[in-house]
Structure formats: structure tokens, C-alpha cells
């Protein structure tokens, strides 16, 4: 058990460390650095944030974020800097607009469709269950009849 626990602890320590960590003197800026690098996509690997990725470009983009924060740029400034160059794709949270509306609305639509399906399936199941109960009742009646017939047979 103990070795297994150790393995899990090791896994935690690996995933919680950034690829390289930069320290900003201002804790507020440090916080911005961490949120920004977690919201920006690494364009080479596409399914990793620049905080997670050790691709060269991700490293350069982290440096860029760090330097801009040091220069006193705001989070919005940095987001704009990135989208000006790489488009909305660089953001893990795309803005809500015409092009991206499907992206935002689709999950809600699918959830609604799923709920509808669950509703109909349950309703149908209930209706079926009722039929089964009716059938069962008939059976018990028949069983009674059979039993009484058998009893009669024993008597004669």
C-alpha cells in the first residue's frame, strides 16, 4: 500500500509544477502571470496551455507575458497583444460573438436534448411497467384458478 501511495504523491508533485517558473516581485502581478499563462493556448501543441507546455514557442510566450507584466501592462493589454498576433484561437476562453456563438450555445442545446431523451425514456419505461403489472395480475388470477382446479382434482 505504501509504495502505491508514494507513486500517487509523486504524480501530484509532477503535475503541480510549472515547466519553468518565473517570480514577479509583486504578488498581484504573479497572480496575473499564473492566470494568463493558464488561459493562453500553446499554438504548437494546441491542447496545452502555455503554462503546461514545454514547446519553444510556449516558453517564448511565457517570457513575453512576464516581460509585459514587469513593464506594468494590464491583463487586458497582454490578452490584446496575443489576440492581435494569433487571433482568438490563442484564448482558451473565446469571446462570445457571431462566429463563436455555436461553440457557446451547443453544450446547452445538447444538455437540453439529453434531458428530453431521459424524460421520454423514463415515461416510456413507466408505461411499460404498468403493462407488466397488469400482466402479473392476470397471472395471479390464473394461478388461483389453477390452484383451485388442482385442489378440486385432489378431492375427487
Amino acid at each position, binding site marked *: 500500500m505504501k509504495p502505491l501511495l508514494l507513486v500517487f504523491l509523486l504524480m501530484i508533485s509532477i503535475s503541480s509544477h510549472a515547466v519553468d517558473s518565473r517570480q514577479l516581485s509583486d504578488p498581484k502581478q504573479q497572480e496575473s502571470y499564473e492566470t494568463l499563462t493558464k488561459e493562453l493556448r500553446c*499554438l*504548437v501543441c*494546441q491542447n496545452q496551455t502555455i503554462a503546461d507546455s514545454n514547446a*519553444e*514557442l510556449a516558453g*517564448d*510566450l511565457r517570457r*513575453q507575458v512576464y516581460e509585459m507584466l514587469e513593464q506594468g501592462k494590464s491583463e487586458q493589454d497582454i490578452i490584446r497583444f496575443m*489576440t*492581435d*498576433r*494569433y*487571433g482568438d*484561437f490563442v484564448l482558451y476562453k473565446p469571446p462570445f460573438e457571431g462566429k463563436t456563438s455555436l461553440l457557446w450555445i451547443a453544450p446547452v442545446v445538447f444538455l437540453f436534448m439529453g434531458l428530453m431523451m431521459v424524460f421520454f425514456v423514463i415515461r416510456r419505461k413507466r408505461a411499460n411497467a404498468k403493462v407488466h403489472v397488469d400482466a402479473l395480475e392476470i397471472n395471479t388470477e390464473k394461478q388461483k384458478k389453477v390452484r383451485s382446479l388442482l385442489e378440486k382434482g385432489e378431492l375427487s
Partner: protein
Amino acid sequence: MLKYIIPLLLFIILAVFLGLGLNLKPNDIPSPFINKPAPHFSAPKLNAPEEKLTPADLKGQVWLFNVWASWCVSCRAEHPILNQFAKQYAVVIIGLNYKDEPEDAKTWLKTLGNPYNVSIMDQDGRIGIDYGVYGVPETFVIDKKGLIRYKHTGPVSVADVQNIFLPLIAKLEAES
């Protein structure tokens, strides 16, 4: 009847989406630079580091801006096509030697040929960031006014030269 139509409809919808998905190119991220001015840089030339080149120096001509590096495998595939392109059609090709060692880059050009009028150095990748470069090689087409008109991601093929670059360059050359 409905029992058959609904699954059929669902299947058709799914097939349409999957079919569209087959033709999507997730690596082709739309460039926000189309019809915008080429970002400024002032970078040392690979073969003469004391001299610098800026996009303003190229105003008045149509030019290609090709991002390359000696460590980039796809660039090696693209290189002979660029050589041929430069020799046959006399286009201005400026190279952005991206995150490379100058010595490696020079050796590469010596052994494989040099299609570039000038190559400039971007050792720390800052010009790359300004141009939204994420996958080398990339090729930009810049018009006489200094506006980026087209961006090609990945190696340029012979078919790309014939079908995309040549018609576009001809069109841009005709503009005043």
C-alpha cells in the same frame, strides 16, 4: 415510419458534421494579419550583422517573407521549391531565420542554395511572435503598400506556387 426516419436523420446530421470535420485543417489558424500592415522590425542581416533591414526598406515592391530555420525539417522539404521559385520568377524573398544559430543557418544556405534576397536573424523569436508565427515554415505575401495579403502555414509545395503564389503576386504587382 417515424421510428426509421429519426435515426436516419440523426445519421445524416452526424455524417455531415464528420464529413466537414475531415476537410478541416486544425493547424491552419486564421491569421489576424490579413490586410494589416506588416509589423515593424529592425533586424540584423544574416550575412552582414552590422546592417539592419526593416519592412520600410521594401516598400513599393511585392515580397515574400519566409520563416525558416536550419533545425526545421519541413523547411528542408520546402527549400528546393523556394530555390526554383526564386530562380524562375525573380520574386523578392526575404528570409526570417527564426531561433537559429547563425553559423548553422549560413552552412544550410551554402549547402542547399540560397533563395533569399536577404535573410534576417531572429534568434530570440521576438519577430516571430510579432508575426504570429507558430509553425515553421510560414510564408507571408506582402504588397507594395506594406500590407500582409496572404499567409501560408507549413511548407510551400509546387502546386501552391502555381495555384496560389504566382496568381496572387501577379495581381499584387498590377496594383499601384
